[in-house]
């Protein structure tokens, strides 16, 4: 026999209230109230999510100081036009599903900040290659989706690019390469042995034996990065 309403705990009473048909409100009232509550909730949720995309939020952790310093030396931070790409432009996808996935996965960053995984320069350098590899793997797998939010081969005028840049971009199109194949370390310093690691990342994703993807790797990404950094100065 069911307990009388008086004997139920507060959870039971709330549960009962949820499933009892509304007698005090009309369907129109409930529909409108639900619609407004939905807008408020979704707006607030989305607004909060966007706040976590700001540069201030990303660099508010101590662990991010090194990244920030390196990024400030690049063309993506400071350039002649004033158009910038902040942390989230490169590291957070625009599409809803991918964005939420990235946000959920970013919980690990909070954990590592708390336990101090990269809290000192030495620890940071120790983890630099593995952290970079994770980002390269994501970018290679997504065909540099976040780069392509701003950069698009279809609208690149090779005639006003430097000869070497134009030729490399043409090679990228011809060989079906992606941005990160050449532009590793575009915003952060590169650790020793990065080319070998990038090769491993590419091979793992392609599921192919060594040397078969050599044509998709740049042999001069350090030079490209150096060139872009010089342009930012």
């Amino acid at each position, binding site marked *: 026999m069911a307990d009388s309403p008086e004997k139920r705990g507060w959870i039971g009473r709330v549960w009962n209230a*949820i*499933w009892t048909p509304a007698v005090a409100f009309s369907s129109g009232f409930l529909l409108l109230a639900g619609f407004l509550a939905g807008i408020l909730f979704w707006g607030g949720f989305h607004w909060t999510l966007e706040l976590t995309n700001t540069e201030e939020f990303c660099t508010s952790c101590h662990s991010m100081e090194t990244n920030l310093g390196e990024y400030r030396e690049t063309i993506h931070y400071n350039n002649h036009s004033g158009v910038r790409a902040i942390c989230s432009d490169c590291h957070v996808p625009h*599409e*809803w*599903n*991918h964005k*939420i*996935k990235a946000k*959920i*996965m970013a919980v690990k960053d909070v954990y590592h900040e708390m336990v101090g995984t990269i809290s000192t320069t030495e620890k940071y350098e120790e983890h630099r290659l593995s952290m970079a590899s994770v980002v390269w793997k994501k970018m290679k797998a997504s065909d540099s989706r976040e780069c392509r939010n701003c950069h698009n081969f279809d609208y690149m005028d090779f005639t006003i690019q430097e000869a070497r840049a134009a030729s490399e971009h043409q090679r990228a199109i011809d060989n079906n390469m992606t941005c990160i194949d050449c532009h590793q370390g575009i915003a952060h310093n590169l650790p020793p042995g990065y080319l070998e690691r990038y090769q491993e990342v590419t091979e793992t994703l392609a599921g192919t034996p060594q040397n078969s993807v050599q044509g998709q790797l740049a042999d001069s990404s350090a030079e490209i990065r150096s060139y872009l950094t010089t342009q930012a100065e």
Partner: protein
Amino acid sequence: MLELLGTIGANIIGLPGILGLALGMMTRNLMLGAAMGGIVGVIETLIFAHWSFANVEMTELVIAVIIGICAGMLGTAIRIKGATV
């Protein structure tokens, strides 16, 4: 593991979770609710793969369909429990 959790979470507050739940609430037939949710999972994966099966990752597709089915069934359960029609 984190990748898996991220994909599950993204699908719960993405199309399979929300639209699947909404569609499930439109029927009292559990199988129909599950089927509609599952279809939303397939469609969502295709949308994010730019309608190309070549870009579809099997893990993502499977997770989206499972979340869609669960959401659809939950929606149907809500309909059965919370409505007299």
